């Protein structure tokens, strides 16, 4: 649905306030920026309370934050930190309700894609003044990550992790199929040829997929992004005012994606299957039901530990012939500060503590992601594993989704047409034309 004409009716404010007070306050639990008391500039925040929401419920992340990071911060500042971990699917609904009820947390953890809408509605602080005061050396060290948290050149989020979607492949399967695991494919065309050799079938059933790309909703857009960017295409024009994913590069990328499932020789037998949420041991490339799989690169450490006999490695990001490599990723989830927080300086202290090199490295390690510090490439964690070196070296090729208001709506609108193309129910060109048309409508509506 689109926004239409607006006629303010002030008398509704009372009703809205009453209902919001009754229904939303009851629904939203703790997390009240308004009961935190005075802020402190000095770091002595005794008696103050900082409310923080982190996205996701990773056991390792919760343990690190609750048992190490927060106690250290509380000891250093004297403040009390109330941390809540919110499941990703519940995060936006809960946060939006909390904003409406005035109970949003002081520090908001979210994905980069959420930043633009929150900034457009003036719900999060412009962090320029805080970032300007950072140690210049540290600021330079995380400058790539900081750019990912900007909307229109203004920083609203400090990302905590870096990500890059890379192909993990089984050296054992490569050897078995007569391929050289030391010389993995360098282009998507070569990846497809290798996938054909690696695919194992029982009659017309694929029992081992040669290549797996995420094809379920949301993941399909991210997989398509990887193909699109590595073919020189993009979703929106430079100023974000027009959809351009239906370019010839986009059509070629989607045709490649659809051909993994359709045609005479499909190589991916898991169309629409939600494998990304499976435990590590059940991931197809770990369990041996896939030979190449597009994954978040930092996860390679857990994959290798779970299946040492599979000889799992990371492939540098491929490109379509004649194009530069590109992949979905870049700065991942990060922290923002509630514009209504009564303790913004304390909130910033917490954010700053999370990006201290040692803390951030430990945090990224626990999440199975990559740290935001460029200097982390020299850390023992990275240098001890050649696959992680490959992952860090791939970061310059990683792109994030466009950070524009209404992106979630655009992504979902596009996702349905991508699904139709992957299922062979729409021609890639037609699917992308319809995607572009709907995305243009969303841009025009200014949502």
């Amino acid at each position, binding site marked *: *649905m689109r926004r239409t004409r607006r006629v303010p009716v002030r008398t509704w404010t009372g009703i809205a306030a009453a209902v919001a007070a009754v229904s939303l306050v009851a629904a939203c639990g703790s997390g009240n920026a308004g009961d935190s008391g005075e802020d402190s500039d000095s770091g002595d925040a005794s008696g103050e309370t900082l409310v923080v929401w982190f996205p996701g419920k990773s056991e390792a992340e919760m343990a690190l934050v609750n048992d190490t990071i927060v106690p250290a911060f509380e000891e250093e500042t004297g403040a009390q930190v109330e941390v809540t971990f919110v499941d990703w699917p519940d995060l936006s*609904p809960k946060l939006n309700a909390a904003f409406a009820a005035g109970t949003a947390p002081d520090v908001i953890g979210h994905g980069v894609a959420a930043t633009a809408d929150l900034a457009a509605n*003036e719900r999060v602080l412009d962090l320029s003044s805080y970032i300007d005061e950072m140690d210049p050396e540290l600021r330079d060290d995380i400058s790539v990550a900081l750019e990912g948290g900007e909307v229109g050149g203004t920083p609203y989020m400090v990302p905590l992790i870096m990500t890059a979607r890379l192909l993990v492949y089984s050296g054992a399967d490569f050897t078995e199929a007569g391929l050289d695991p030391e010389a993995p494919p360098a282009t998507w065309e070569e990846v497809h040829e290798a996938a054909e050799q690696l695919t194992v079938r029982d009659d017309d059933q694929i029992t081992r997929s040669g290549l797996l790309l995420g094809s379920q909703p949301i993941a399909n857009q991210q997989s398509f992004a990887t193909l699109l960017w590595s073919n020189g295409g993009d979703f929106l024009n430079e100023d974000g005012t027009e959809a351009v994913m239906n370019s010839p590069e986009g059509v070629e990328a989607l045709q490649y994606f659809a051909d993994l499932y359709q045609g005479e020789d499909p190589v991916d037998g898991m169309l629409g299957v939600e494998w990304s949420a499976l435990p590590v041991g059940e991931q197809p490339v770990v369990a041996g039901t896939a030979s190449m799989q597009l994954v978040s690169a930092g996860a390679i450490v857990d994959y290798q530990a779970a299946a040492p006999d599979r000889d799992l490695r990371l492939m540098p990001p491929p490109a379509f012939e004649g194009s530069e490599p590109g992949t979905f990723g870049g700065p991942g989830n990060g922290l923002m500060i509630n514009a209504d927080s009564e303790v913004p300086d304390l909130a910033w202290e917490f954010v700053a503590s999370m990006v201290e090199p040692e803390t951030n490295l430990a945090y990224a390690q626990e999440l199975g992601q990559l740290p935001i510090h460029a200097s982390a490439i020299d850390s023992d964690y990275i240098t001890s594993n050649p696959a992680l070196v490959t992952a860090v070296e791939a970061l310059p090729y990683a792109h994030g989704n466009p950070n524009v208001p209404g992106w979630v709506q655009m992504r979902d609108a596009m996702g349905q047409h991508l699904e139709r193309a992957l299922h062979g129910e729409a021609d890639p060109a037609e699917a992308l034309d319809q995607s572009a048309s709907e995305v243009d409508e969303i841009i025009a509506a200014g949502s």
Partner: protein
Amino acid sequence: MLFVIPAALYVVVFQFIPVAYGLVLSFSDYSPLDRGGPEFIGWDNYASIFTDASFARAMGITGRYVLQVLPFTVAIALGLALLSNRVFRGVGLFRTGLYVPHVVSLTAVSMVWLWIYSDSGLVNQVLDFLGLAPQRWLTTQDAALNAVSAMRIWKALGSNMVLLLAGLQTVPKDLYEAARMDGANAWQQFRAVTLPGLRPMLTYVVAMDIIFLAQGFPEIFVLTQGGPYGSTTTVNYLIYTEAFQYNQMGSASAMAFVLFAFIAAFTIVAIRVGQGRRS
């Protein structure tokens, strides 16, 4: 009067006011992120709904979902109620066993069925045991809504059976004796005595099932998230995405009231049909 006040307050504060506020929102443009609050836009949200292809599709899917669950769940529940209306050893256990699914929350049950339908889940294990190929129950357009419907039929059986059993036990025994004396066989007794006697309860069961099924959400949210490519996006799931993913509370509220109008209309028709046959 004093004793009624707490319950009345509860109904007013937690039911009447939210519904009334929802109605107000349906005539407004409102995002919870917007500091300005709701802004009146008249009938625009309702006008948009009737030109919105995704809403029309969701209405169709919701209708199909109701129509492919309702007849099966009522018919099977009636058969089970007839069975459990007899006296045999273990009838209590039989009735309890059938009612158990109703006691468990729909969300929890859906989680169990998510595994049952998974690639290595119970259904595919049974197929494998029988030498048949495994199927993708929740990720193909043809199978997803049917798979959700099968789960919902199972889930609704218990409550429907208990209600119909209660209805069966209100049918006077002497009517059966009279029918038998007139030479009626079992089928004739069912048609001439059981069904007319059960009609008020059947009407109630059908009406309540229409109301609950048309509001199907938890099972969709857990099992399919509205996919694949929208083939299980019911109106309630569309309302959820509109309100909580896209922050369009106004249009989501309008959708909710249009859905309410359709449910009310179909329920009234079902009740009228039931009453008409009885009279």
